[in-house]
């Protein structure tokens, strides 16, 4: 375990490539979070659970004999409506309230989803086998599963489509207007209620795509949601709201960090190191800002 990373340089390459491919997925989830954070000013603790739910949709398709890669198309459609349902039932009542109220409300949703998934799908760690095989690089020293490459490619595709959609379409313009100033948008005839619902739905759909990809490349488990929430939160605060290249870069950075933490500290500390990194980043930013007598807000 200890200094394997230094003795065998190929492990470093392996970890970097794995981390980048994983980080692209994180960036996709974080993009959804940045979107609804920017528009609705809500931090969705249930983000990770939406991801896992998307993963289970793909897994179920796999169980019924459909290739799980089709989950990439089916999961976002289902998750879009799940997102709208969550918005109509809970989120629209907490949108303009204190931020802590929305954090606690989404925490409740998170616990609810976690447990419902536990009942529906059981507490086993599962994965949907895509049967894509592997690619060998550098004289078979670096092994990359094709599913990881596929998932990174699909993530980039979806992110690019969404960026174009946000720029060009009418709804995209309405969403951006609401993010800038909800009140002014309302005065100018934007139905902000509809925009909020659509934003939450799009966020859930992105989570669905990411979840389907995760179920193909990694494993899913009902209780694995919270780390994904924390990762995407971390990526958004490092990159800042509305900074897309930043989200992509910090997502990949986080992926590489995790792979190295896995190699150096051991797998049992992987999740712990993610959460600790969050604390460290927040504290670092707090000290940096306090020199200017400002604070994170």
């Amino acid at each position, binding site marked *: 375990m200890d200094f394997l990373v230094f003795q065998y340089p190929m492990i470093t390459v392996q970890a970097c490539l794995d981390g980048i491919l994983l980080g692209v997925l994180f960036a996709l989830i974080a993009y959804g979070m940045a979107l609804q954070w920017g528009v609705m000013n809500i931090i969705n603790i249930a983000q990770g659970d939406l991801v896992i739910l998307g993963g289970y949709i793909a897994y179920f398709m796999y169980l019924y004999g459909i290739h799980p890669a089709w989950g990439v198309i089916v999961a976002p459609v289902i998750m879009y409506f799940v997102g709208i349902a969550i918005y109509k039932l*809970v989120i629209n009542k907490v949108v303009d309230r204190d*931020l802590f109220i929305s954090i606690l409300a989404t925490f409740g949703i998170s616990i*609810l989803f976690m447990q419902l998934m536990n009942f529906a799908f059981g507490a086993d760690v599962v994965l949907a086998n895509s049967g894509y095989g592997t690619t060998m690089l550098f004289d078979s020293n670096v092994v990359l599963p094709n599913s990881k490459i596929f998932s990174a490619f699909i993530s980039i595709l979806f992110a690019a489509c969404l960026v174009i959609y946000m720029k060009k379409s009418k709804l995209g313009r309405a969403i951006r207007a609401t993010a800038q100033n909800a009140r002014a948008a309302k005065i100018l005839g934007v139905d902000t209620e509809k925009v909020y619902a659509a934003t939450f739905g799009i966020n859930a759909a992105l989570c669905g795509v990411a979840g389907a990809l995760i179920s193909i490349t990694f494993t899913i488990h009902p209780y694995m949601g919270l780390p994904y929430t924390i990762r995407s939160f971390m990526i958004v605060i490092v990159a800042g709201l509305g900074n897309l290249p930043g989200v992509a870069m910090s997502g990949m950075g986080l992926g590489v960090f995790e792979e190295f933490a896995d190699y150096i500290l051991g797998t*049992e500390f992987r999740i712990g190191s993610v959460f600790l990194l969050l604390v460290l980043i927040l504290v670092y930013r707090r000290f940096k800002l306090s020199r200017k007598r400002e604070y994170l807000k």
Partner: protein
Amino acid sequence: MNKNNLVLYSGILIFGLAAPFLFPAFKVQLSILCVLIVLATTWNIQGGEMGYNSFGNILFYGLGMYLCASVQVGMFFPLAEWTESGGEKTFVHTPTQFFQGMAVGLVVAAIVPTIVAGLIGYSILGLRGHYFAICTLGLGVAAGEISGGIEIIGAGQGFTTPPFPDVGSLEARGEFFYFLSFFTLILTFIAVRSIYSTRFKLILNAIRDNEDKAEAMGIETMKYKIIGWMISAFFCGLAGGIMGGLVGYIDSTDVAFDGREMGVFMVLMAILGGKGTLWGPIIGATIFHIFKEGFWTFFLGWQYVALGVLIVVIVIYFPEGIMGWLREKYPERFGEVVDEKDRKAQVELK
């Protein structure tokens, strides 16, 4: 203290002292209730009064739990052999050793988390609002994940706390833990009540209402924020130490650093009762515990679903809590002067 209060307090005290003999079957439940009230009341010091909503007080609770048990074992036996497997069968605490260990353990369990809170307070309390909430959430979960990887305190397989020694009576264990938690509750109540009658509480409220203004008025907000958090940590650690002995088994993520249960419970209880009041968390914890036990008994397996729904419902429909609702309904009782005309005008507006 007026006459009504005296009657109320002595009534509660007498009920508390008589409870384990009146309801011997509910001793464990009553002890857990006492611990929950302690947690909710102390969460309220920084969550309700100071406005720093923390999900991370579970850190101090879990720390206290592990410390108390480790000290209790480590004082007399090798800790590593104890936690490895089945140490509790080889080594047996005599009654003297058990109570000595428990006493020292509880002192350590209270003091170390306080110091930890003081040390990390300067970094963490500089964050505000939701950043503070998420940061403390991360802290709690990280502590759970990391303690789950440390061998000497049992790692993933858990840590069995010393079994209660044989002192001749079967009821002794329940009574011991009940009175321990009940006296902790009384201690907490007296401490919190006396804090709330000083200038310190006003400073905390000033920080909650507008921190920048409070700082501009010459209050060293950081100092008071840290002290407020340290007070919470002290009682959380104590409660954790007692709970560890009561449950008898410590698991890193399911018992000690259980952010999904206890960490949310303490926030929820305080909100249910009413943030920023003395009695709110106590009422909230009592009602919550009764509801929770009902759920846990009748909807076995569905308890977390019920919990999730409960959180959402409480947060959406009762964000002010029971005390807040009462305050709106009977403002005179809370010492607020109400102008009759103003009230009528408001009724008409509605």
